[in-house]
């Protein structure tokens, strides 16, 4: 195992940490909103999926960097 593999793993680990917290916060707030107002579930869901997609994109950036480090 070389150093570069450790760096690839660290990129993914650190890069996955923040989006994981972000997605957790987004979904927990959306669930609270749906619980308080179940009729608005469809609208809340759309916005939630958008927010999750934005947060997830950060993890995907670090994934792309990790893949490039690993395979290029």
């Amino acid at each position, binding site marked *: 195992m070389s150093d570069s593999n450790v760096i690839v793993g660290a990129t993914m680990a650190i890069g996955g940490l923040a989006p994981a917290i972000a997605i957790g916060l987004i979904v927990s707030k959306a669930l609270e909103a749906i619980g308080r107002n179940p009729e608005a579930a469809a609208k809340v869901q*759309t916005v939630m999926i958008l927010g999750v997609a934005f947060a997830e994109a950060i993890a995907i950036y670090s994934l792309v960097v990790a*893949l490039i480090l690993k395979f290029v």
Partner: protein
Amino acid sequence: MALNISISAEPIFNLGQFEFTNSMLVSLLVTLGLSILAISFSQYLKSGRKSSFFMFIQTIIESFYEFVQSIAPQQANRFFPLIASIFLFVMLASWAGLLPGVETIGLMKNIDGVKEFVPFFRGGTADLNITLGLAIFAVISIQVYGYKTLGMKYFKKFFDFSNPINFFVGFLELISEFARIMSFAFRLFGNIFAGEVLLAVIAFLIPIFASLPFMGLEIFVGFIQALVFATLTLVFINIAATSHH
């Protein structure tokens, strides 16, 4: 036998200077399939026959139309064709990468003296060039819809000389349009390519049965990413085509 993963699409043949890659072949086949489906569907609508297959397609299109209507109630008719085309193309091009034979059937080729495996097919959206093309197309159509609705007033958002703060905000808006291209392209490419790497690694570790649940996951991811791409385009178009102030 080593794990064979290539981050870029491999050329399968050359047209003069132009390299025709395996991802382009799959995207072309998906486009062809969608076009044939659209033409035969419109003929089915005119003929008035009953067919369970076309009824199924009609159900999908109608439920997607309702979804578009829930986000852009007034202008759903204007935006629906573009958004639905993006959605269907991205979804089918991602799913094409999961078909048996894709990324597994190919030839051994000599590239710069090294023997490399070159598959004939590769998932359409598992290539950064194609997702980047889609992203540029989506962002340009956002500007076009904004211009068609608001006229020259639309560009005042980017070039506002009324005071220094507005000028700086407009500059940031201009940068965010370019950031959108990057985030559209990398989100789709990253998700689909990561899925293919995951499937390859699992199939490498446990050759039979173990990849089945991950196949289900990848079908879901392909659908969600197509939905996210289409929804984001729709939301941005809707914002651009609504006058502010």
